[in-house]
């Protein structure tokens, strides 16, 4: 999926729409129903809700027109361009225009109005085109064989939820993208008080919080963390990571899952990875890493595994003698099992479930206990 440049989105989740005029190809009821059904597609996959107004200005103004129709982007007669729409915003922005030189139908004998409307309203909500042929937001008109069984693809769901998040949890959640599996986890909710993380790492001044197939990206100049699929930046990485840490001196983030680890510079996975974690010197009894953190000053990288930890010397590139040591001995107050760990401003932040322990290595004590998602401005 993609969003318009600058990712414009509505600052509210309840939007109004108005059907300004109608095509002669269909009854008014049929047009009303097609538009309502198209909006429902997006309602079911996001926190957005829509209500119809019959006069005045609405957020989304829907109209039919031919050739030049007042926005300097004329339609082109039958075929080719079917419709266009504008990204969220005031005035013409958010509006959707349909070319009335097309033959609009309720089935696929002509151009199916519901399908094109669902696509155009995706633009009105902030989605740009997708390069996935199975996605609703794919640029070319591709009516499914059975229009009655239309479902958003996972790509469409990921797109709308990258802008607005998932629908509020409701017992009868009905949106299950057509290519998802029923056991697929729900989308993580950023300010869920019970939110825990799989891994946390800095990356060139940003902080990444990994969860399931997604990650939040906290950028210092942007108060609102971005929400992305891991696969958008690192297609070869698996979901549900175990650990991640940045070694500044190498401008590299090391990412761990199971007995493998990857090295990435920005979003470039380095050649020769993944490698086995045992190439770092871990004994065969270590099956996976729970959390990892690199102390830039000391040039030491800490690896946490269940109730113990190892320390890796970045200069000699070997695990130090005298390890593993018990976490409880050297980090009193930090309760295993640790999900993730982050070093910031000389303090260590241990994430365990929905709790986060701020640890001062000089004072050798926990100085604060916070919610795990406190970094996400919740």
């Amino acid at each position, binding site marked *: 999926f993609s969003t318009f*440049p600058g990712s414009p989105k509505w600052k509210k989740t309840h939007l109004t729409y108005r059907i300004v005029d109608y095509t002669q190809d269909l009854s008014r009821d049929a047009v009303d129903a097609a538009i309502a059904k198209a909006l429902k597609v997006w309602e079911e996959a996001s926190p957005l809700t829509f209500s119809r107004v019959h006069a005045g200005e609405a957020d989304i103004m829907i109209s039919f027109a031919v050739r030049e129709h007042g926005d300097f*982007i004329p*339609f082109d007669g039958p*075929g*080719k*361009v*079917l*419709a*266009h*729409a504008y990204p969220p915003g005031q005035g013409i922005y958010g509006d959707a225009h349909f*070319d009335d030189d*097309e033959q609009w139908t309720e089935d696929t004998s002509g*151009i199916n109005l519901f399908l*094109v409307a669902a*696509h*155009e309203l995706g*633009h009105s909500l902030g989605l*740009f*085109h997708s*390069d996935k*042929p199975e996605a609703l937001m794919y*640029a*070319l*008109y591709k009516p499914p064989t059975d229009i009655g069984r239309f479902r958003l693809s996972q790509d469409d769901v990921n797109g709308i939820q990258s802008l607005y998040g998932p629908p509020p949890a409701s017992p009868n959640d009905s949106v299950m993208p057509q290519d998802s599996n029923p056991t697929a986890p729900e989308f993580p909710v950023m300010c869920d008080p019970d939110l825990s993380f799989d891994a946390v790492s800095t990356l060139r001044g940003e902080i990444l919080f990994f969860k399931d197939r997604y990650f939040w990206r906290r950028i210092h100049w942007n108060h609102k963390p971005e929400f992305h699929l891991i696969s958008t930046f690192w297609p070869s990485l698996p979901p549900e990571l175990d650990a991640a840490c940045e070694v500044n001196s190498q401008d590299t983030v090391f990412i761990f899952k199971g007995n493998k680890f990857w090295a990435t510079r920005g979003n470039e996975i380095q050649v020769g990875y993944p490698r086995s974690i045992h190439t770092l010197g871990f004994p065969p009894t270590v099956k996976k890493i729970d959390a990892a953190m690199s102390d830039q000053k000391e040039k030491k990288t800490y690896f946490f595994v269940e109730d113990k930890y190892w320390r890796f010397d970045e200069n000699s590139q070997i695990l130090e003698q005298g390890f593993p040591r018990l976490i409880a001995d050297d980090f009193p107050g930090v309760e295993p099992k640790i999900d993730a760990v982050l070093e910031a401003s000389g303090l260590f932040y241990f994430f365990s479930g929905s709790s986060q322990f701020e640890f001062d290595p000089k004072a050798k004590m926990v100085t604060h206990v916070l919610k795990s998602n406190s970094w996400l401005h919740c």
Partner: protein
Amino acid sequence: YPLDGTVKEDSKMDLVQQYLENYYNLEKDLKQSVRRKDSNPIVKKIQEMQRFLGLKVTGRLDADTMEVIHKPRCGVPDVGD
């Protein structure tokens, strides 16, 4: 009839250039000199379009590519501002 052929080739190039301008940000003020379909900017844009729409990336106006250009679609661009 080379003249006839040229006319057909020209209208094909018009169509392609229009498509690339509308949806792939091809600069509208392209000089005549780069109008040839083997000019670099055009080839690059054809490849960008083929990649985005899931076609075989050849950089040439092969039959599949020409077929897609005629298909009904949304008027919103595929890339760019």
